[in-house]
């Protein structure tokens, strides 16, 4: 059996068993839950699988030595975004949730486009000779990120803060109930 696969393969596999296992397990979880997000008939189930997908992605960030981003991923995506989407679905209640997630008429065209994009991306990714750096990611990632965010990237950081504020006010303004005048039927707010 070992002769069949080759000594080299076994050596590579045993030398970084955990990273290989973690990558392929997490990749399987992410892709499977991503497909389920699209295929589920009930949109609430879709959002639940979306949370699984996001948590798998946080694990993937851990394999890439980005522990701060993994924490942010769980907090913002698996926590805030999923809850917000479920809340939106509950506000827009419909009679039966069972078929709340239908396909439209362009499924085959979409599948064709997607297959083309995937083929091109995979071809290019495999064909490229990657210039991998020899250096390692520092053990502690939070402090360098904080220093960079508040020194070199301080302008984008503040712009992001303003963006969040604008998005908050804009969302409130858009979703606010519009009072309709009963006599004239015209909208007055």
């Amino acid at each position, binding site marked *: 059996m070992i002769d069949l696969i*080759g000594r080299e*393969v076994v050596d590579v596999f045993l030398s970084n068993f955990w*990273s290989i296992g973690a*990558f392929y397990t997490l*990749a399987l979880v992410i*892709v499977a839950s*991503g497909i389920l*997000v*699209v295929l589920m008939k009930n*949109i609430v189930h*879709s959002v639940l699988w979306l949370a699984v997908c996001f948590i798998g*992605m946080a694990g993937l960030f851990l394999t*890439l030595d*980005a522990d701060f981003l993994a924490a*942010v*991923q769980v907090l*913002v*995506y698996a926590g805030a*975004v999923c809850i*917000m*989407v479920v*809340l*939106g679905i509950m*506000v*827009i209640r*419909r009679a039966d949730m069972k078929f709340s*997630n*239908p*396909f*439209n008429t362009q499924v085959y065209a*979409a599948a064709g*486009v*997607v*297959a083309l*994009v*995937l083929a091109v*991306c995979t071809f290019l*990714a*495999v*064909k*490229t000779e*990657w210039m*991998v*750096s020899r*250096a*390692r*990611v*520092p053990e502690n990632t939070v402090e*360098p*990120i904080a220093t*960079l*965010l508040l020194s070199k990237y301080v302008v984008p950081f503040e712009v*992001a803060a303003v963006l*969040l504020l604008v*998005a908050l006010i*804009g*969302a409130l303004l*858009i*979703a606010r*109930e519009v009072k309709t005048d009963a006599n004239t039927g015209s909208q007055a707010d």
Partner: protein
Amino acid sequence: MQIPVVKLIDPVTMLSIGPAHYVILSAVLFCIGLFGVLAKRNAIMVLICIELMLNAVNINLVAFSKYVTPADFIGQIFAIFVITVAAAEVGLGLAIIIAIYRNKVSVNLDDFDLLKW
């Protein structure tokens, strides 16, 4: 010219995890999201699938941050900004969908033809 497919299924290449693995994984996830955006009828579902696509981009950014510039954290900081923008986008998108639902009593994208001439 090298034949990429042979390189892809070579066991040694498959087992030594490198940038190509992460790029292909993120391409697969991006395509799942793209398919959802193109083929789904529910507006909230399209929003969810856009989130999937943004996450696929994040995988690329973090992978390049590790393999190309490990000490500079450029990719990770960009990923943080992508997460910020994505959170703002979900909030605004849901607000717009709720506002349209109030007018048209539907979240079906085919019904959103207010601008159709």
